[in-house]
């Protein structure tokens, strides 16, 4: 027993000391913490003069949305997917004449984002090629020459840790869809209508 003790004691003590140093160092608490994300929910709101184009199940003008991003004040951008559990975004099609769009209830994006100050939201859109009125009138929609598929909604907002921030992005169809003789000319007029 004593012989074994003598054989291992030196090495054991040395190894133990080393281990102790590592262990004690690894438990050191650094002076920073990673914040928890906030949630950003983006909803589409459509503005339309009902004397012109009504919100109705018989009316339809769709926007294909292929990307939604929140833009932080340092220009960093975070992608927002369809819902909080989504792993990626696929092209989604939304009827701007849906009652939910009138009532600002049409959720087009939801996701975790780092807390911080943001300057706005980007949407990459493609308008439908026709607007359908009264269920049977098919009006071709022609993009204006100045049409830019990237809509840059700009209004500062703050996302705080563990809180949900609601952004309503509004598209004004009265201005965006300009009636021609037999077509609608589409040049989107849009803004952030509310932040909550």
């Amino acid at each position, binding site marked *: 027993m004593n012989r074994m003790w003598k054989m291992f004691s030196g090495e054991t003590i040395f190894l133990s000391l080393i281990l102790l140093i590592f262990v004690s160092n690894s438990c050191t608490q650094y002076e920073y913490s990673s914040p928890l994300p906030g949630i950003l929910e983006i909803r589409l709101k459509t503005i339309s003069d009902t004397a012109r184009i009504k919100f109705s199940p018989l009316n339809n003008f769709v926007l294909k949305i292929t990307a939604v991003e929140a833009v932080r004040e340092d220009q960093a951008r975070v992608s927002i997917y369809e819902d909080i559990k989504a792993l990626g975004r696929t092209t989604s099609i939304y009827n701007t004449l849906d009652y939910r769009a009138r009532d600002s209830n049409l959720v087009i994006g939801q996701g975790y984002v780092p807390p911080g100050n943001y300057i706005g939201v980007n949407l990459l859109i493609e308008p439908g090629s026709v607007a359908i009125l*009264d269920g*049977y009138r098919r009006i071709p929609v022609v993009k204006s020459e100045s049409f830019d598929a990237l809509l840059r909604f700009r209004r500062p907002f703050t996302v705080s840790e563990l809180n949900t921030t609601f952004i309503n992005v509004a598209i004004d169809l009265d201005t965006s869809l300009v009636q021609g003789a037999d077509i609608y000319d589409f040049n989107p007029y849009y803004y952030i209508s509310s932040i909550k």
Partner: protein
Amino acid sequence: MMSNKYFLQRWGIVFPLSLLIGILILDGCKGSGTILPNIPPETRLSNIPPPDTFIVTQNPRLTLFWVGDDPDGFVVAFKYRWNFRLSANDTFQHKPWKTLLNIIVSKFALIMEGDEKVAPTVYKYFATLPPEGLDVVTSDALARGDTIVIEGVRVYASNPDYERYPVHKSPNSGTFIFDSQDTLNPHTFEVAAIDNVGELDPAPATVSFGTPQVVPPKSEITEFPTDTVLVLDRKTPTFSGIRFAFQGFDPNSRTLDYQWVVDKELWPQDRIPWSDFSPLTEAYIIATDIPDPYASKHTFYVRARNEFGSIDTIGYFIRARLNNLAQIIGYDTIYSNKVFYTIYPPFQRTDIPYEKRILLINNSYDWDTLATSARPSKQMMDNFYQSVFSDLGKDGKYDVVHSIDLPNLKFFPGRGMLGKYSTVFLFSDATNEFSNHGHQLTPGRQNALKDYCYIGGKLIMSGWAQALPTNTPNTDIFFQAIPHMQDMEPNNDTDYVGAKGVLGYPDASLDPTKLDPTWNGALYRIYIGRPSGFGEIIYRFDSKTNRCVTRFGPTGPVQFCYEDQPVGIRYIGITYNIVFLGFPLYYTNQTTAVAVLRKALQDIGEF
């Protein structure tokens, strides 16, 4: 331990050698001797005639090539100029010097402003760009033809993207157009290289030559309105202006551009508003282009300009007329002006009051002496509608005309007549036994109606078998463009008993007293269809038998029923309005007809 012998051996060599090199270096830095003066660059023009000859070029455009050498450096730019005179009695003048950098950057040949002393600095900037070349913003600016500033010097590309025939594509050549107003125009072109210290070749390379007088191009108007046209003072989505097309001829010129004016003799002669020169070979005239927009007769003038700046001011040329064997059989005078006629619709004028007025066009078949209430004559039809319009309170506010299609006499209101009325009501309610109106809505007549609508007219149409090709050729195009009804198809069984009103229109059932007993209380060849564009359904088919037919489509047989299919369309557009009744209003009773037309006139804004 290092031995003393080794130490001495080693340091005994190294130390003196270092001392020697040090002395040499120090001595070399003293700068004894003299700096050689700069040798100016040399310049040569290539492919030019010998110095003692004088050639005359075929036209005022000449391409010259040059090179430069510098024995003690390199060439950074070239300066060039040439002289000219306006006539033989005039003194020679010089064009200003131009400085062309001896470098191509992102495909651009660069012209700089400023004197030769700054050329090396600008050259160095472009010659020492990183491997990726110019940044995108600068490159785009040069491509657009913008001027950029480099080291305080303005620089622009001689060959921006829009320039089809640039003066320079390389630093060693240029294609110039020399002023050539006189019969023979002598010029001396000189070019001098600039070296890397900004020194100019003191003996520029020169070449002298003559250029011939520039012959102006010829212009011809190829398309113009042959009928009276309607005109407005603005372009709208349906009125783009009165179109003229033209072309020019000049075998020497690579480019031609054009300008035009209307009624140039009526404008102040010192301020004739010729349009800007443009390479476009068509013009769209609106009323603001015409000095008196309410006058009817006008003249359109066009003139071409060639790349030498010579403008066609003669206004005509002679063209030989050839036969099939290419032999001259005569001569034609081709003018670069055309007379045309316009009407500014009174209902669109804001300078004078206009009282609304309706034109009724009776386009129905005339049963004449065989007329019955089921087969009315034109006069009976007139009487019916005059009575209806009287009930509408329109006495004295409308005129009635008949379509005429006799072998020797044809009539349908033209644009000139249509343009005087705020609303046109075209009715083709009676047909012969073959469903023909006896009048064809020919393409010319269709175009007159279309043009009337496109300048803001209002149209109501009523009729039987209107979409039958013998009544309306090019049915699909016309009905889709104007009444906004498409895919029209007749009921070939006698089962139409009326039209069910939508959007506030009253039902329009048939008046049994106007039906022939053999018709079994119904009509056939009433066309159904579906609305196109902003067209709205105002009437639906009321079928006596609720008849359905089997159709064979791409997916197989489909059951198709006439009941409730669209038979009347309303189009309320941003420039014109139409109410299209796809059934003959005459065969309803008068009360119904009054109600239908009242609603139609309200919808189109005539009431």
